[in-house]
């Protein structure tokens, strides 16, 4: 683990006069997969939005020493790629053009004339997310799973040091879930910080380097999966007991019964 890269200090968020996030303080490394887990309504998406600067927050969020609030919007956009839930595209654009929007923060505003450098990054991102064969299809004609991979390709095309992905595996079949998580793993190994919101604590235990556990707007655990996803945490936060095993040297964690 390298030194602190993405840091949050006393970060809090109020929405409509109600405190929804309380005093988040943590430091994340410049490379690795970090899983953000917690029950529904715990504040996971709100935390991602706050990190991204999409909603106002108290406290201080910094990337590599640069305080986010002081950075211009375009500089932020080059540092953080954000992949929201839902993957809505409002017009039936070709997949290639949607992915090319990832180059927008880098000044490539027109997918029709990306230039060689940007075009190659777009192709690579499409290849990585396994959507090259869909490049000329209209994004609105795709299945939910295909659309979420296109959205992932779009986020990867930003080539940002930080990727915040909100349930990127939500509408994927098992095979594509594994593909996406392996892809995020590979992206992280190539030198990026990937923060993934997921409900799948089994996937978190297996694929993440670190886990942030959020409950009721508070950070209740942070650390390696075996440190953050203890039986106590699973019982207190998720109200489940887990079956634990291992296969091929990787941990298996399966929510098994109510606790």
């Amino acid at each position, binding site marked *: 683990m390298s030194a602190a890269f993405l840091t949050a200090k006393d970060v809090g968020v109020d929405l409509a006069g109600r405190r929804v996030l309380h005093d988040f303080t943590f430091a994340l490394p410049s490379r690795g997969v970090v899983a953000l887990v917690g029950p529904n309504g715990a504040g996971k998406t709100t935390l991602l939005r706050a990190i991204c600067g999409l909603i106002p927050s108290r406290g201080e969020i910094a990337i590599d020493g640069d305080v986010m609030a002081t950075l211009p919007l375009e500089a932020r*956009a080059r540092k953080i790629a*954000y992949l*929201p839930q839902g993957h*809505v595209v409002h017009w039936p654009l070709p997949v290639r053009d*949607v992915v090319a929007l990832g180059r927008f*923060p880098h000044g490539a505003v027109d*997918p029709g004339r990306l230039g060689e450098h940007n075009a190659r990054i777009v192709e690579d991102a499409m290849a990585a997310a396994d959507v090259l064969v869909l490049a000329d299809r209209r994004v609105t004609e795709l299945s939910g799973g295909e659309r979420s991979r296109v959205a992932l390709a779009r986020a990867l095309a930003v080539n940002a040091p930080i990727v915040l992905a909100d349930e990127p595996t939500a509408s994927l079949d098992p095979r594509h879930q594994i593909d996406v998580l392996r892809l995020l793993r590979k992206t992280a190994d190539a030198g990026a910080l990937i923060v993934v919101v997921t409900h799948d604590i089994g996937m978190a235990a297996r694929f993440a380097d670190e886990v942030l556990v959020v409950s009721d707007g508070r950070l209740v655990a942070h650390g390696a999966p075996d440190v953050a996803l203890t039986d106590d945490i699973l019982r207190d936060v998720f109200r489940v007991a887990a079956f634990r095993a291992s296969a091929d040297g990787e941990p298996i964690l399966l929510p098994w019964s109510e606790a």
Partner: protein
Amino acid sequence: MVTRSLVSLRFSPLVALLVVLVAALATASLGTGPVRLPPLTVVQALFGGGTEEQRIIVQGIRLPRAILGLAIGAILGLSGAALQGLLRNPLASPSLFGAPQSAALGAVLVIATGLADVRSFLLPVVAIVFAFGSVFALLAIAGRNAGLLLLILAGLALSSLAGALTALAMNLSPNPFATLEIAFWLLGSLEDRSFRHVMLALPFIAAGAIVLLSLRHSFRVLSLGEESAQSLGVDVGRLRLAVITGVALGVGGAVSVAGTIGFIGLVAPHLVRPFVNYDPTRLLVPSALMGAALLLAADIAVRLIPSNADIKVGVLTSLVGVPFFLYLIFRERRSLGASAS
């Protein structure tokens, strides 16, 4: 956003085709009237040839009308495309949101209170302020990420309010002749307009067009939704304000010299959208050209339709536009129903 140059506007075969169409319709517009002139004579008279009578007809009487038809049609088409891009919805348009009606209210107040005659710069300025106010209020009332139903209902309420206040202003006006004049002016017409009208409206229309075109690349990013667009570096709040400003400048300027001409902003983008691959950015210029073509054609049609009174062009565009709107509702009814939930 605004600073990005306009130089990179691309010229596709579609744009070239539309330019030819607009040029042909403009020539036809110059040739149409009590004295019919063939295209060649029109071109000669336009560039100083032909008889003096022909030159007066073409340059003095019909040219301002053609210029206004072209410019107003273009800004209405462009405004419609920009609003559709901003709200990511093919049913958005200035007239459905009450912008022209509100601009007309502003203009009527100026006329009815005798603050200025119809050739004063106060007229477009007040019209623009009212148009801005109405679109701003619409988006504020409907809220961010508002569904279509909400926007249309809010637009209906705002245009009804503008209509009611316009009626009140006419009701209270001490001069019945002024009232009648306002009533006819409200119908929307390009008749008997002079170069002074052109000078009055054109700067505002041009300013609105520049603002809207300079924002064009943001509309494509906005296809991903406001949060994704913001995360890609588009300042969505600023973009929204800039679009409203551009639409208000253009529509306000247009309404102040031509009254309310509806539905061009709805129809024009719809006609060209399939030809630009549904890309909200590449939609803007063809929509402007298609809007210009539609209004020029409508303005030629009102001169050709035999009737004992002049049919106002705004009446014609509404007569054609409303059934078209109903057709769009019919086609979009599934998503309309969905947005209600």
